[in-house]
């Protein structure tokens, strides 16, 4: 019995084996922790991407709303603008009169109502009075009043 006990006692793991095992465990732990860190970084990156996409989608929606408003405003502006551009015209006595915004005259310079428009001029109410201009042949220029402003239309040659 003592002999067997002594025999077992003499079986020992060498210091070299202990050290080798210790180093292997340390190395193993390090590689595991680096894997954990990599996994952590990956999940962090994924979360960041998801948050970015979420924020982007929210801001995109806002922009869309803003764009819609803006486009409406532009349309409105264009509508208003169209009323003042060259495409605005009046047909009077089978003659086409095109709006000219460079000509500014006072309301007092208007002569008399010669007709009523049939809505050829955009954004104007139905049957807007057409005026002739004092001392100017009505075949050359005519005018209307819109928003207390006198709009002058020049007859085409």
């Amino acid at each position, binding site marked *: 019995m003592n*002999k*067997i006990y002594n025999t*077992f006692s003499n*079986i020992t*793991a060498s210091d070299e*084996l202990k050290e080798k095992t210790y180093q292997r465990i*340390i190395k193993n*732990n*390090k590689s595991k922790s680096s894997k954990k860190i990599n996994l952590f970084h990956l999940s962090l990156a994924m979360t960041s991407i998801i948050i970015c996409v979420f924020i982007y989608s929210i801001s995109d929606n806002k922009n869309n709303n803003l764009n819609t408003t803006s486009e409406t405003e532009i349309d409105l502006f264009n509508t208003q603008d169209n009323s003042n551009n060259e495409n605005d015209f009046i047909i009077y006595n089978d003659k086409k009169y095109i709006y000219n915004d460079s000509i500014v005259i006072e309301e007092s310079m208007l002569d008399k109502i010669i007709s009523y428009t049939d809505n050829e001029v955009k954004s104007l109410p139905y049957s807007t009075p057409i005026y002739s201009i004092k001392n100017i042949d009505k075949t050359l220029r005519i005018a209307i009043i819109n928003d207390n402003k006198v709009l002058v239309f020049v007859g085409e040659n």
Partner: protein
Amino acid sequence: MLKCQSDYIKETIDNYSNMVYRICLMYLKNQLDSEDAYQEIFIKIIEKSPVFTNENHRKAWIITVTTNHCKNILKKKTYYQTINFDENIIAPTNNKEDNDILSIIFTLPLNYRNVIYLYYYEGYSTKEISKILNRREATIRTWLKRARESLKIMLGGIFDE
């Protein structure tokens, strides 16, 4: 790595190094394989170390992990195909008499060797061994009895209960 963790690893290796190595040798009968198994077992022990109620609990758990690991090695079919145990025995001690006794112990069946070690060296009772190895106590007693009888025959006067 935290210093406390490093200390824990060192302490575990220092305290259980010889025990793990001896059990590996009992199972594998081969110094080189025992050293490989020893390293893998300690990696497993450090990785999976649960909370223990006391040091005895921890020791019993380490013995169980070691025996299970060695059993798994022996179960591997490829191991049987490539390794012939008897031809690869390397003297585990520097003492000729110890090596002779060991070579006799190595001739015992696997379960007998392990029981002999746990009973005579680690000082466990048959009841404790039955819990560690997850066998009936009667089985352990039978293995121990047969192992003693075999050793008496083989060692002659050296073996004295």
